[in-house]
């Protein structure tokens, strides 16, 4: 009897809890990789998210913001646990981050089930843009296919007739290689997928690419693997013989190690540090002021946008987080100054945006920097949006 009473009392307290507590602060959970060799990416995302909060005076709609950063350790199962912890025990209002498509795919169900709004700052698993799309999930990055599709278009412009594809064997790697094949008009003479993330020696794959003798090689290797791939590509004597085209292989987190190896290797990207809009100029300048010796990467730019997207939605609903429908409509407007230039959301909540060609150059100080060379494609929408049942 006493037990039942106690249980009933606890239940009452729990039920009364949310109603009694006024919304006094905004809690955001941020899942990324903060340990191991790819921690540089997670740190860049956290730095940029923090900078965005600084720019807002660390308040959204008059309420202080609290961010809980969680490390996924580069592992889907850990990412899922951390996501569940953020939702169930921290009771966050929003959840953001996610570098890796496989971590995102493992983590998305508890987010959608709990109707927590999620703003993905990088991972672009094609399923999340298509059949798994949700009213509660938004992205400030892209769907995986989009960037390599843009690269395929650029290779057509360059008159490339045949290509060999190399990438890692996980959700994003498979999406990326499929993406190039969507738009590339020439022949795909071969495709190699490598064990991810354990395999770091690409000698067997490079030998096969060389033997196939294509006009070009396309690769997708994010993080440290991109450094290793470029080094081995040069060591195999392929630099200057078979040109390399990339997506997400060269960025500000890998350039300090790639250096000369990255010169003259083109990449496609939706954001480059020198895009001439005011929001971007402020972001890049303040980032370099706040974190001396570091430059923001596209991972950071997307995280900065994620913070601003959340702020725009909360401000539009005047801080009322209980009306999910109004909040969703506010999110869909994307009414904020994106550092890539303003964009629209498609029906699947993936940006419809421009893709640029970027190249590596040495600046006046001898640092290696990325710069925009051309716009490959404007207002580009991903192919998965037709598979998403949302209107």
């Amino acid at each position, binding site marked *: 009897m006493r037990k039942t009473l106690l249980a009933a009392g606890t239940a009452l307290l729990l039920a009364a809890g949310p109603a009694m507590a006024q919304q006094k602060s905004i809690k955001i959970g941020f899942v990324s990789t903060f340990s191991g060799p790819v921690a540089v990416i997670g740190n860049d995302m956290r730095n940029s998210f923090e900078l965005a909060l600084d720019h807002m005076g660390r308040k959204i709609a008059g309420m202080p913001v609290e961010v809980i950063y969680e490390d996924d350790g580069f592992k889907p199962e850990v990412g899922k646990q951390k996501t569940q912890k953020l939702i169930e025990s921290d009771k966050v209002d929003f959840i953001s981050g996610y570098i890796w498509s496989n971590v995102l795919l493992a983590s998305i169900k508890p987010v959608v089930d709990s109707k927590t709004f999620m703003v993905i700052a990088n991972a672009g698993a094609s399923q999340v843009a298509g059949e798994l799309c949700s009213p509660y999930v938004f992205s400030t990055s892209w769907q995986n296919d989009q960037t390599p599709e843009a690269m395929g278009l650029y290779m057509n412009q360059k008159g490339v007739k045949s290509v060999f594809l190399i990438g890692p064997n996980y959700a994003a790697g498979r999406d990326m290689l499929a993406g190039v094949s969507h738009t590339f008009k020439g022949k795909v003479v071969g495709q190699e997928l490598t064990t991810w993330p354990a395999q770091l020696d690409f000698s*067997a794959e490079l*030998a*096969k690419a060389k033997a196939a003798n294509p006009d070009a090689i396309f690769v997708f290797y994010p993080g440290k693997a991109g450094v*290793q791939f470029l080094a*081995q590509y040069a060591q195999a004597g392929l630099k200057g013989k078979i040109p390399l085209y990339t997506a997400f292989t060269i960025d500000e987190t890998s350039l300090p*190690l790639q250096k000369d190896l990255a010169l003259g290797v083109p990449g496609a990207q939706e954001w480059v540090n020198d895009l001439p809009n005011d929001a971007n100029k402020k972001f890049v300048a303040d980032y370099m002021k706040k974190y001396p010796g570091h430059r923001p990467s596209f991972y950071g730019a997307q995280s900065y946008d994620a913070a601003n997207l959340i702020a725009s939605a909360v401000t539009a609903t005047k801080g009322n987080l209980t009306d999910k429908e109004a909040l969703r409509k506010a999110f869909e407007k994307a009414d904020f100054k994106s550092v890539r230039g303003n964009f629209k959301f498609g029906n699947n909540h993936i940006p419809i945006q421009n893709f640029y060609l970027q190249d590596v150059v040495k600046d006046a100080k001898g640092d290696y920097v990325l710069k925009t060379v051309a716009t490959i494609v404007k207002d580009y929408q991903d192919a998965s949006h037709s598979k998403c049942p949302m209107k």
Partner: protein
Amino acid sequence: MTLFIEQCLNGLQFGLLLFLLAAGLTLVFGIMDLVNLAHGSLYMIGAYFAATFAAWTDSFVLGAVLALLATLVVGMAVEVIAMRRLYGRDHLDHVLGTFGLILFFDEAVRLIWGPEGLSLPLPSWLNTAVTILPGMQYSAYRLSIIVVSLAVAVFLYVLVMRTRIGMLIRAGASNREMVGALGVNIKLLYTLVFGLGAALAGLAGLMQAPILTVQIGMGENILIVAFVITVIGGIGSVRGAFIAALLVGFVDTLGRSYLPDLLRLVLSPNAASTAAPALASMLIYLLMAIVLVVRPEGLFPASAK
């Protein structure tokens, strides 16, 4: 055909590199009866030293030589400071103690060099491909790894089979108590052997650095493969480690390069290219399982006790 030769060279290079790592591991295990999980940390230390010294001296070769000496010194220091406390204890204590060393080294590297990792750029004469057969080019750097590793293998053979120290090492592997009873300074021998093992691991690490970059925890994955090799080759046997390392190198590289094509014969192209990398990375463990079933002591057991 040239592709097959090139893949064989890739396998040979990978195998020889693994041999350097496994030789040190098997020596330490065979002679001191010590399970050293921190062997991968010495591999990492060698790579970090090489990247640092090469940047200071502006010379890849000089940096590599200095790094080799520095790793030898670190190895001997680790033996004197930490490993001595572990001899004669249970294997579980070894695992616990050397696992602690892994954490220590990882954190020490993070404090000294930072979390970002380093790169070790190659001089231009190594960063190209050379023609080794008519119509066939191969990476000059990978070729130089093959040459250096083979030279080290010959050096180890002479050292172990033809010198007095080698005789003591072999005797130590068969019966440690008897060697000690005969008045050999076992303490010094152990320090030397551990230092030698560390230097071999450091050499493997610094040679791998230009290919795989230098980062915290780089030794942990490859250490598992090195353990597989010591098990296949027979614990304590340098010759066994050599043969097993080459076997593993070939199986892994040729598996990765030909399995996708083989699977395509029976599976759809998409399923084949997804399944092949997963299967290929299992092959060496399959090899180990088969060897364990057929010859549980490994291919070349060092001592018939």
